[in-house]
């Protein structure tokens, strides 16, 4: 029998802020982008009472809860707190998976033989609360899905164990929205079918779900019945890296667009080199103001060099940017990553190679943004994290979850 524990730090960002400033305790707090396009990344339970929830546009949140204290947030600080929690879990549990800054799975299979899973999990939670002062909730069951849903039910700052055989009855009265795969769209479709409670899905034949949702339907049905065999994966190799930017105001300023793309590409290529990776596929993405999103990709020979990749990104962008319309978002993605160093070309200028090596050296010492192309200087908030250390990407406060 398996035993999987799911842990989630309650209102993580808010908790972190409260540790740093006790005055925030007991007040409605919202963290997120403060610009017009900003969304709520996290909010305290006091703010939730007003109907605010994460991923809601900040504008709307302000209207719902005008008294809330709004903070921009600081992903560096949150990562630090998150790492403190990770260190404790790493010490206690041999097999764990960190799925985001504030979420963990731990495989406790076999622990019941001599200690008791629930006892162990409770003590782990108490240790985390004691040592980091951060509230955390967990769910414990046979698999990841049920544990995750249980954590959601346990919150705030509590724990639930769903023992073997009771999964279906535990899930039955809950809303279908609680199933991890069900987002807004699926939820709406389910509502149209008259399905509101998980119980209804449990009673439906699997074929009906397959007919409506295809393969995903089968997955949803299985999850609704508490069936999930996915393993706890300790380290996930990144399959791609990407960066995208949404503008405060939609733009057709091509100089600005190209500058941002250059900055994004330059930064991503540096991340590749720092992680000793090469890419073989470049994708450029544009979202126009009407939310129509277009992407264009190109296979290339394995590379991680500025002077091959940046011109290609530009070429793709020029091919892709066809509509005479305001642009809302642009982004770049590198996929088909492999381990390896850049193969130097015989006809490359050896001074160029030296220049890039020197630039990388400077970045390693003084940070990603210590040196860059002048054309990319306009783009200020290109991410600064290392994508290849096995950690999930930290969420910037202004980014949609």
């Amino acid at each position, binding site marked *: 029998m398996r035993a999987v524990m799911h842990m989630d730090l309650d209102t993580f960002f808010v908790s972190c802020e409260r540790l740093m400033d006790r005055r925030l305790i007991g007040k409605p707090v919202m963290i997120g982008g403060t610009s017009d396009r900003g969304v709520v990344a996290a909010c305290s339970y006091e703010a939730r009472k007003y109907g605010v929830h994460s991923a809601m546009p900040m504008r709307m949140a302000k209207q719902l809860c005008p008294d809330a204290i709004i903070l921009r947030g600081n992903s560096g600080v949150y990562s630090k707190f998150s790492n403190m929690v990770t260190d404790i879990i790493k010490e206690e549990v041999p097999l764990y998976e960190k799925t985001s800054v504030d979420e963990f799975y731990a495989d406790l299979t076999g622990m019941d033989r001599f200690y008791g899973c629930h006892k162990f999990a409770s003590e782990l939670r108490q240790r985390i609360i004691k040592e980091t002062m951060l509230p955390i909730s967990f769910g414990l069951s046979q698999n990841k899905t049920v544990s995750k849903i249980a954590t959601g039910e346990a919150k705030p700052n509590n724990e639930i164990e769903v023992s073997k055989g009771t999964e279906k009855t535990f899930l039955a009265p809950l809303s279908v929205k609680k199933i991890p795969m069900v987002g807004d769209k699926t939820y709406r479709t389910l509502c149209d079918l008259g399905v509101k409670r998980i119980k209804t899905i449990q009673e439906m034949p699997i074929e009906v779900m397959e007919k409506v949702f295809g393969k995903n339907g089968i997955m949803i049905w299985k999850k609704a019945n508490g069936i999930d065999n996915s393993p706890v994966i300790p380290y996930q*190799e990144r399959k791609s890296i990407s960066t995208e930017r949404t503008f405060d105001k939609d733009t057709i300023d091509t100089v600005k667009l190209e500058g941002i793309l250059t900055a994004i590409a330059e930064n991503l290529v540096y991340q590749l*080199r720092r992680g*000793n990776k*090469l890419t073989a596929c470049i994708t450029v993405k544009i979202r126009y103001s009407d939310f129509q999103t277009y992407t264009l990709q190109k296979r290339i020979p*394995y590379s991680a060099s500025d002077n091959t990749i940046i011109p290609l990104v530009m070429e793709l962008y020029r091919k892709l940017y066809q509509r005479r319309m305001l642009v809302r978002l642009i982004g770049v993605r590198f996929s088909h990553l*492999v*381990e*390896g*160093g*850049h*193969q*130097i*070309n*015989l*006809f490359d200028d*050896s001074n160029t*190679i*030296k220049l890039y*090596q020197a630039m990388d050296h400077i970045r390693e010492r003084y940070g990603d943004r210590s040196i860059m192309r002048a054309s990319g200087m306009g783009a200020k908030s290109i991410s600064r994290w290392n994508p290849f250390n096995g950690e999930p990407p930290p969420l910037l406060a202004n980014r949609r979850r």
Partner: protein
Amino acid sequence: MNFIVSSSTLRKGLQQIGGVLNASNSLPILDNFLFELSGQDLTISASDIENTMRTKVVVDEGKEDGKVAVPAKLLMDILKNFADQPLSFSIDTGNFGIEISSDYGKYKLVGQNAGDFPKGQELENANEITISGDIIVNAIDKCLFATGNDDLRPVMSGVFFEFSEDKLNFVATDAHKLVKYTRTDGVANKSADFILPKKPLNLLKQNITSEDSISINYNDTTVRFSFNEIELTSRLIDGKYPNYEAVIPVENPNVLTVDRISFLNSLKRVSIFSNKTTHQVRLKVAGSELSISAEDLDFSNEAKERLTCNYVGDDIEIGFNSKFLLEMLNHLTCNEVILEMSEPNKAGILLPVDKENDSEKILMLVMPVMIR
């Protein structure tokens, strides 16, 4: 048009030139061999427009000169299934009906009008040079593997022939590796150069033996190799070959001398543990020890070997694509090799120490990969 020919003689002739034929052709006529009978001599041609190859077969008995295009695949397939025996061909030049009689029976097929067959490229204002087959055989063997595959840079997809009054150079590069093969025992009366594509190189490789004497006629667009009874006419790659001399570093203070076979075998073993896509290995030389290592982080595979070597220079750590190194070491025949290096981000040059032939010079260059 009638003739009697030994099936094995004909088969040998067709196999020599059959390599020219493409698996699929835009022009149906190119799926044929052109047969031209003149007295006892049967000239057979195959073409893919770019390359035309011609060979001569002596028939046992020939009546009525003439020409016809014969479906290549059908003919090759049936010839493969005959024991050696005389075959009699009788061809109606009016409706291109071909009838073959063997000891076993009769086979009929329909040919095409020989007039539709593309005429070989004309060779005007040609220069001529005659060299021994040994030079061509070796040059192709040493260079061919280093040619590129990039459609965007067609000049690099062939071998560069550079003739001068004191030596012959053969160069191939794909921008990551480069081979320069020089012979001083063959000379041209006038400096000239051309780039020969891969396909004719392979055709030459299949058909030339070291003993042949080869006459090469060439102008700016076309080249013709004639040897034995075979004649290969090919269109050259149009364009300027990159200035390869400029990229071969001259000053390489770090010189490593190592046994070729040991180096090759070590690399073979270590590279098994390298990343399956990038094949990268790391060479580290300190004192008289060469250590070769590789790792594949995705699977936690790792290998490291040590070799004794002779080394003059500063300690160095340099990364290479092991595939390139292996190919190069495999194409050398000497006992010991020299690897000359200057910096971790500059080319490594591989040279043979002992030579079988005093008039040949081989230089192989490989670009490193950046390592951390």
